[in-house]
């Protein structure tokens, strides 16, 4: 991914919404531009589709030929001609079928290839978005943007899209034939259908709104269902099943109402096509008879013309039918593009620098940070952390400790100022180098639905089971690992739910440990671990991380006591720094925090 576009680099944590201002065709064009796979062999596929369409015109021609020259001949039916016309028609049908087969196969291959690429690209982009952008969107909505939204595009391209192409071809061919037979009636038919085009456009915009609403309601409903499932313990513990049921019913009903409304508009649109077609047919009968009576039109041509009008009706019906799908597809495309159009504002620089070998030092140069639209969370932080030191960052809840860690690991960029690692500004540092040398263990040590070993291996892909077991032993967790039913192969359940919060944190630390970083950032990484284990872990980490730089954010001050240096953050400012022994003597925030901590633990 390339550097961020400047226009949104200061913007809030929202996904790109320019798509909503883009028209339907512009959206599709933009989507195809971003997905070159769609264009592969498109021309041949379209030509084949046109060939397939030609077959549909065969029937009216056959009817016209049969009636005019075969049946209604003044000298009596000509069986030979009828057979000839029918034989030719059969050949055309055969060619049509073969072309239809080729069209379908090619279309599926191309679109599925394009959609899979689009899906994967959007998925990757979600991971490349900054944490602010990721947090701005509901998880379920992000998921649907890379799954069901792409599926609606697929449905449209494979069913509706083809139908539109075929229909357009059908209308064109029918027009050519009609012109050959009677330009006056052709004009008449067009006059009848022209208003319909405008009516359809009007309904189209209303349908678009209706389908967007459906989508939103479905999204909200999924949110409530997800709450019901994820919040199951709380719902039971507080006996709020009835209230939850009410919320569910409300969102389910809102979805149904929106769907019904959209359906109503679609039905009306469809009917309009039918009425217009009938009017056109009636007009052709009247006009044709008048023309025929004047000797300008044969009976066969007029009847054939009536068949050709039905060739108009079907595309119009299909067009309105397909409009539903088209609306869905455009809405889906818009949402997928919303992700692709959102620049990864905290982006991997092009030709990023590599961190110098060896231990890493950290420098903050007048760093200021504020969440979009919020007040400063960190004010003008200027500091240097020497390589190989163990630093503890302490402060009250909400003092800005975690922001500090997020800036340090480039999960976010400062609003102003800069952060340097090993002398290299973070914004110039390649992610490969950054993420392999700098690892942060967040408080919520998310685990994947797999085994302990697989989760630890996430830290280093080539770690063997033996190495993983040794990592736990190194961290003083051999006992814990042993009492698990299947050791490192114990499944952790979805999100690690089979383990307690503390146990999840143990696995998360082992995962960071095997990654073997030069700068380790622990953001309250042991907050749910019992004190004995925490101390053991702390001691193990201390000896194991000697020679690396570690930065630990903790509210348990035992961490600070063991650190080389303590940074005390208060209201976004580093108010004190120095070794524990020194700070605890000074009259200040740290002494206060420490006194409170001691009184609780001793």
């Amino acid at each position, binding site marked *: 991914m390339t550097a961020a576009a400047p226009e949104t680099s200061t913007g809030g944590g929202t996904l790109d919404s320019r798509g909503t201002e883009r028209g339907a065709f512009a959206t599709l064009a933009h989507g195809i531009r971003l997905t070159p796979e769609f264009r592969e062999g498109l021309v041949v596929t379209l030509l084949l589709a046109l060939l397939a369409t030609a077959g549909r015109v065969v029937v009216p021609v056959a009817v016209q030929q049969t009636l005019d020259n075969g049946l209604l001949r003044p000298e009596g*039916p000509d069986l030979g001609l009828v057979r000839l016309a029918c034989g030719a028609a059969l050949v055309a049908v055969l060619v049509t079928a073969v072309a239809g087969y080729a069209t379908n*196969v090619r279309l599926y291959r191309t679109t599925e290839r394009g959609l899979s690429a689009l899906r994967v690209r959007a998925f990757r982009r979600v991971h490349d978005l900054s944490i602010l952008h990721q947090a701005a969107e509901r998880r379920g909505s992000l998921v649907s943007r890379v799954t069901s939204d792409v599926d609606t595009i697929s449905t449209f391209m494979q069913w509706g899209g083809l139908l539109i192409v075929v229909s357009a071809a059908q209308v064109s061919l029918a027009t050519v034939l009609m012109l050959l037979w009677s330009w006056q009636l052709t004009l008449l038919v067009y006059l009848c259908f022209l208003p319909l085009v405008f009516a359809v456009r009007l309904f189209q915009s209303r349908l678009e709104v209706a389908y967007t609403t459906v989508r939103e309601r479905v999204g909200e409903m999924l949110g409530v269902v997800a709450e019901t499932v994820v919040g199951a*313990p709380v719902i039971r513990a507080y006996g709020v099943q009835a209230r939850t049921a009410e919320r569910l019913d409300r969102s389910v009903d809102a979805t149904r109402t929106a769907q019904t409304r959209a359906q109503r508009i679609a039905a009306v649109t469809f009917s309009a096509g*039918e009425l217009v077609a009938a009017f056109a047919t009636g007009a052709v009968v009247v006009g044709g008879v008048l023309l025929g009576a004047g000797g300008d039109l044969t009976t066969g041509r007029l009847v054939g013309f009536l068949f050709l009008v039905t060739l108009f009706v079907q595309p119009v019906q299909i067009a309105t039918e397909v409009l539903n799908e088209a609306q869905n597809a455009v809405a889906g495309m818009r949402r997928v593009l919303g992700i692709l159009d959102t620049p990864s504002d905290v982006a991997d620089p092009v030709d990023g620098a590599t961190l110098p070998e060896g231990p890493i030092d950290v420098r903050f140069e007048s760093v200021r940070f504020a969440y979009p639209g919020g007040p400063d969370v960190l004010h003008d932080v200027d500091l240097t952390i020497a390589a190989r030191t163990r630093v503890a960052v302490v402060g009250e809840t909400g003092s800005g400790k975690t922001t500090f860690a997020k800036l340090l690991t480039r999960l976010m960029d400062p609003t102003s100022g800069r952060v340097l690692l090993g002398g290299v500004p973070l914004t110039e540092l390649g992610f490969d180098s950054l993420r392999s040398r700098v690892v942060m263990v967040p*408080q919520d040590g998310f685990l994947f639905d797999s085994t302990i070993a697989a989760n630890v291996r996430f830290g280093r892909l080539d770690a063997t089971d033996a190495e993983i077991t040794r990592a736990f032993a190194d961290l003083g967790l051999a006992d814990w690992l042993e009492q698990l039913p299947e050791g490192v192969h114990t499944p952790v359940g979805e999100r690690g739910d089979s383990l307690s919060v503390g146990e999840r944190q143990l696995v998360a630390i082992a995962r960071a440990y095997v990654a073997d970083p030069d700068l380790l950032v622990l953001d309250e990484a042991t907050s749910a671990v019992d004190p004995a284990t925490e*101390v053991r872990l702390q001691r193990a980490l201390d000896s194991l991380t000697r020679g690396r730089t570690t930065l630990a954010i903790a509210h348990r001050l035992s961490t600070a*006591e063991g650190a080389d240096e303590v940074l005390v953050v208060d209201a976004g400012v580093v108010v004190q720094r120095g070794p524990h022994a020194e700070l605890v003597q000074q009259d200040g925030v740290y002494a206060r925090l420490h006194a409170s901590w001691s009184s609780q633990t001793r």
Partner: protein
Amino acid sequence: MTAPNAPTTAPAPPVRTIRRGLGVLWVAVKEEPRIFAVSAVGSALFAITTIGQAYVFGAITKDVIVPSIRDGEAATAGLAIAFLAIMLTAALKVVGIVARRLGAGIMQYRLQATYRRRVTRRYLELPLSWHHEHPTGELLSNANSDVEATWYPIAPFPFAVGVIAMLVTTLGLLLVTDPVLAVVGSVVFPAIAVLTVVYSRRMSPLMTRAQQLRGEVSAIAHESFDGALVVKTLGREGQETDRFRARSDELRDTMTAVGRVRGTFDPIMEALPVVGVIAVLLAGTSRVGSGDITPDQLVRVAYLFTLLAFPVRAIGWVLNELPRSVVGWDRVQRVLTATGAQEHGTADLPGHGAAALSVEAVGFSYGAVGAADRVQVLHDITFDLRPGRTVALVGTTGSGKSTLATLLVRLLDPDTGRVAFDEVDLRALRPGAVAEVASLVPQSTFLFDDTVRGNITLGADLSDADVWAALRVAQADGFVAALPDALDTLVGERGTTLSGGQRQRLALARAVVRRPRLLVLDDATSSVDAQVEQRILAGLRDSGASATVVLVAYRLATIALADEVVFVDEGQITARGTHEELLATSSGYADLVHAYERSAAEQQHPRDDADATQPVVA
């Protein structure tokens, strides 16, 4: 979405699938008989008027067009009637279309809504242990895409019913018109039907596979986005993308195979009616020649075939969707028929004030009964708590404390033994009684996408004064007052706009505001710093609420609040007594609670081993 979601056997034989699918459709008809009737009648009207159109055209050809052009004189009255007839049939047809489409849509959406309600209602009824056995992604898809898939065939269903009526009528009319043409029709239309069945038979395993892959793709995305922070901090975006791509490409290949099958059948389906028309013309011309039928009859029949070409495929649409529908139905039924809902009694807990808690010989294992990976996490736990007492459950990480806390408020039932309030077994209490008496603040906080107030009251009728009082006890009044809309501030999905400590304090306030008679705090202050925690604990003590309290705790200050301590080790109570007693009698306990202090001592005298092993009592 792993094993429990995957079909355990090969796809059912197609005839069976179609039969079962028709069974599902029958359920739909029984659920929504009236709206189905409306749409079916609409569809029939559509069918009749479609055929009617053929007749009108035949008549117009014969009585208006042919004579007018032959005589070179337009019959004005005839033309007006022709025009009116065309418009009238069309108007009736439109009525049919609207009734059919709107009816089918409403039926489909109503069924979706009904089953979504039933499925989610079931989620609320089934016990937590059932939830533990089913991944979130699976439950989400049961309520959403599976319900949707089940009722997918409803959209074209009334149309198909109408088409069948239309086919029968057509064959009848053909018989009346000319037996030879009827033979042609009776070959072509059944051929379409047979072909449709073959089609669905080839298609259904692919569709099932595609649906399953869609679920897997979505499950990967869900998990990966949930773990986005970990993915980012370890720089594993590429690896995650590869994992996603692998499934996405599998879905692509399956859909490409779908394209091949569709490519084979669709053109044949489309060609068949055309072939039928050509056959009609061939056969019809000689019949006209021999004087058995008139040219206008032939025109009518040919026109009828053209009209039927498109609608006949509606039968195919329904049949095509049936396999998917059956899979969805089965998955929805798995939820609706799941057993194991917690049984409730009828007993009430009439008392006031703190409740007495007794835990008697409780044993508990995770995993389905009889499963190989069943792990016993609690063994023979017994302890009593007199009303108003506070007990601290202390133990190492993974010792079973949280599980025990869950059992105390009956989120789970013990395998053996019992938990009782005021000597009443929790299982004997009426539904809702436990929640009225006891509040649990779990270790991991869960907030609803609602306002601060909504998250605290959870719909209970509580005054703002009560809410603020609870927030004060939880030390949350300060930050809530500073929020843009105070109590009316929306906290976002899972409370994402708040910090971990803030979320935890709201969860605490949620428990406190209910004035529970038993309060269970499962390490509920782990994300707040020491000073705030101390103020919270003081607030709890001073709030004057008379409650029996169970604390899962590590910090000495928290433990100090307790009248006594229960020390849990590997799922068993190994010691019980006051803090002082346990320090003297249980080395495991002493090791645990004095870990920090010992560590501090060591750091001050790193080489003095004696200091390190000798805990200093505070």
